[in-house]
């Protein structure tokens, strides 16, 4: 492992101060930053551990049509939470499908969202639910938060503190696993709201990261059914391509996942 200096601040202020003082990366569950360092894709001189900052462990609450999840909540916590399972079961199912049990014990929603891995699950849920990301400085709407591959609107040193999700009438998540890494090769989160609006977000497939399927949203608003999606398709030119799936395949797979997120609304379904 590349040399680094470990810090364990107890407050957000202390964490931000260390970050501002030198080349740093935050570490939450560590399952993104540590593999990145091992593969020489990152080499922060300082690693700032966020797991002992009380302001981040605000827990899970549901109130007034909003579900609030603290940034430090692990995937296992979110998956097992009776509140999340009741309010947005597809979100609980999504969290329960991330990685494996060991990964879920350490990985956090804050870390996943801040990193915006193009094959991560959470960004699609935030985008589809129209979530709000709260940081130590401000709040950002999901539509403004995810800006590209591994890129977000966070400023240097900014820390995600919690995320709030409007509770939809129903939501579904469908994911097709990459055969090797088991991340999303294409996955879709589709949410339907009381005012009739529909939001659909795709992860794992787009070559600019997580994105909203605007044309499909409009069709689903007219009729929330898989039939409504007939004739609609994603462009291969907008998709990622690698040894596991060509752009053409991903374009097709992403559409199938949107269909299945609609078909199985109310739950998360994982395919492989």
């Amino acid at each position, binding site marked *: 492992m590349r040399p680094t200096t470990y810090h364990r601040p107890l407050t957000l202020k202390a964490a931000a101060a260390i970050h501002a003082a030198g080349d740093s990366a935050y570490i939450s569950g560590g399952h993104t930053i540590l593999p990145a360092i091992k593969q020489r894709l990152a080499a922060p001189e300082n690693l700032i551990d966020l797991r002992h900052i009380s302001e981040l462990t605000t827990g899970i609450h549901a109130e007034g049509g909003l579900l609030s999840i603290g940034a430090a909540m692990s995937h296992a916590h979110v998956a097992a939470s009776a509140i999340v399972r009741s309010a947005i079961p597809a979100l609980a199912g999504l969290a329960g499908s991330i990685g494996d049990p060991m990964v879920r014990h350490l990985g956090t929603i804050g870390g996943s969202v801040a990193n915006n891995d193009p094959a991560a699950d959470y960004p699609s849920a935030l985008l589809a639910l129209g979530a709000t990301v709260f940081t130590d400085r401000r709040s950002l709407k999901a539509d403004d938060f995810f800006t590209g591959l591994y890129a977000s609107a966070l400023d240097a040193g900014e820390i995600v503190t919690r995320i709030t999700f409007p509770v939809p009438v129903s939501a579904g998540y469908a994911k097709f696993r990459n055969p*090797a*890494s088991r991340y999303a090769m294409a996955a879709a989160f589709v949410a339907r709201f009381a005012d009739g609006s529909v939001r659909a977000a795709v992860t794992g497939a787009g070559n600019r990261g997580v994105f909203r399927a605007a044309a499909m949203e409009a069709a689903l608003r007219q009729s929330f059914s898989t039939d409504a999606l007939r004739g609609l398709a994603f462009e291969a030119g907008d998709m990622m391509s690698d040894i596991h799936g060509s752009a053409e395949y991903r374009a*097709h797979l992403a559409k199938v996942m949107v269909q299945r997120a609609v078909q199985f609304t109310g739950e998360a379904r994982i395919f492989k």
Partner: protein
Amino acid sequence: MALDKCLALSDWAGFEARRAASERAGLRRGRGIACFIEQGGIFNERMELRFDPSGMVTIVAGTHSHGQGHATTYSQMVTEWLGVPFEAIRFIQGDTEKVPFGRGTYAARSSMLGGAALKNAADIVIEKGKAMAGFLLEAKGAGVEFAEGIFRVANTNRTMPLVDVAKAFYRKGGIPKEFGLGLEATGSYAADPPNFPNGCHSCEVEIDPQTGSIVVDRYTSVDDCGRVVNPMICRGQIHGGVAQGLGQAQREGMVYDRESGQLLSGSFMDYAMPRASDIPEIHGEFHEVPCKTNPLGIKGIGEAGTIAAPVAFMNAVADALDGLGVDSDALQMPATPEHIWAAIAAARPHAAA
């Protein structure tokens, strides 16, 4: 016969009902069979048996177990042949300071070559033991028999367990000169001829034409590995071989960048190892036809799964795609979701939509 057993064990007759149920769920079910024969055992091998003054014996093995349970299997053999208690048997392998010579483990060779070489060594121990037993029991020209770990002077009730005879080879004095001091034996055996493990495996898959996803729903194995020395170990070898064979057929592959030669599947992030949820429960049986060309009747077991599984799997895939106009001869391994989907889409676009 292996084929008949496999068909029965896999509920071949019940397939149509399962296929119809799959179809109602929008999935295509197919089944495949692999009747295979392979060559087991190669080169020659050397095994030693060394007793110590306490009557314990050490197996010094030229083969090298990396999980195949040699310590157990060879000890079973020694206990059966020589009557040494299982707990009094030690096992050494792999240390070039302690093992004078060996060829290792691969090519399904250890049970036959290691076992037969061990038998050779055990037979030498018995011969030496007979001579010592005859001396100790004052046979004076009468024959000495050996059975169930005990030496007996023929037609008498004068007996001595082999373990005690072995200890006698370490006495401080009074050992006939021609016996030497100590009891050990070196045995060898050559794969001349080799053996021919064979069998019949069957596989059922369910394909989702919309995604190309393949689920292996059912796997049945009937294997003739000759005499089965340890059924649990042999079953374990089949399980592991089948999982590896299915992995090769469905998901594993070394992928290189054509221009740079860079390995693209260089970690498990990109090399698709099968997980527990990718492999079905394997229902298996043994069909024991003792090998006639080695003293133990043994055939190899280590490779059978890897040989049969890819064939059974790809045949099942071809069967599942039958009727869609897919050229099954053009299917490649690994049969990844994209590969299967693309084959369906090319032949029958609306089926893959």
